């Protein structure tokens, strides 16, 4: 059978972080398409009855995922998925982690605690990640050491500080992740 066009291989990078921290903004800064949104139902049937505690009384609700893409070559596409940080969505990550190269945690120095769930997730799944401190208005109120301590990061986890609205910073975050993945300790 022949196709009009051979399918490229696909990998993904996850962009996690608390609500409103700039996940979709980072995706949009480097994606070749305006970030797309897709929705998935969360049903009691799909997650087990107990797993939706806190979501509400409805039997179903939806979770939105924003994503973009970077075509590396005709043979290779990298998808970037903004990923809800809340633990109650973690069941979805069984799909999200398929083909994952690594992850980014976006953190806001004014509320670092909103990043804890994302970091826990990556660590529990042994997904290598980097931390991008999103400096709103270009103001960084805390030192890198303070941030590392507050987030309880392993020393080898790269931390970058910048504005995720800029293409260069967003690109540098992804490059730092790839360099991190190529580092001898992880290979």
């Amino acid at each position, binding site marked *: *059978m022949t196709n009009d066009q051979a399918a490229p*291989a696909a990998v*993904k990078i996850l962009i996690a972080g608390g609500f409103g921290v700039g996940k979709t903004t980072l995706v949009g800064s480097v994606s070749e398409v305006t970030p797309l949104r*897709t929705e998935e139902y969360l049903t009691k049937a799909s997650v087990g009855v107990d797993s939706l505690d806190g979501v509400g009384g409805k039997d*179903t609700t939806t979770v939105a995922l924003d*994503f973009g893409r970077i075509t590396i070559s005709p043979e290779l596409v990298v998808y970037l998925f903004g990923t809800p940080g809340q633990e109650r969505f973690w069941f979805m990550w069984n799909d999200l982690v398929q083909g994952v190269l690594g992850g980014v945690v976006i953190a806001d120095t004014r509320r670092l605690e909103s990043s804890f769930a994302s970091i826990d997730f990556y660590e529990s799944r042994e997904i290598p990640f980097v931390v991008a401190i999103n400096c709103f208005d270009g103001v960084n109120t805390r030192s890198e050491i303070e941030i590392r301590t507050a987030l309880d990061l392993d020393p080898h986890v790269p931390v970058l500080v910048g504005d995720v609205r800029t293409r260069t910073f967003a690109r540098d975050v992804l490059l730092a992740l790839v360099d991190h993945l190529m580092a001898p300790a992880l290979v």
Partner: protein
Amino acid sequence: MNAHWSEDDFEYGDDGADSMVRPYTITRGRTMPERDDLTLITVLSTVASAIVPGRRLQPEHRLILDRCRYPAAVAEVAADLNLPVSVTKILLGDLIAQGLLTARPPLAVAKVSGGVDLALLTAVRDGLRRL
């Protein structure tokens, strides 16, 4: 929820926003995909030589076949069709079963599959540097 109206469990608003009725009408009531190997970034391609049957396909099936003449990931198809991922996967499964669509799974890059592939990472790094 009006707990004293038990039939509320079966009645949904006209806009469909709060129900699963409309999307799962498209799948003729099926709520689970027949295959569980489709992921968000499984890439789909319409088989060029396939003969599309005149009947038995929903309009959404045809939209998918048009869309996937250029390979697209499950998530992209779902976003384009404005359908939930789970509904999209059911429709994609129909087309794969009929030989109209091929699916390419994501590259296995997880630790369990032997660690990172340096050639892959080098390609990604070079691609990112061109941004």
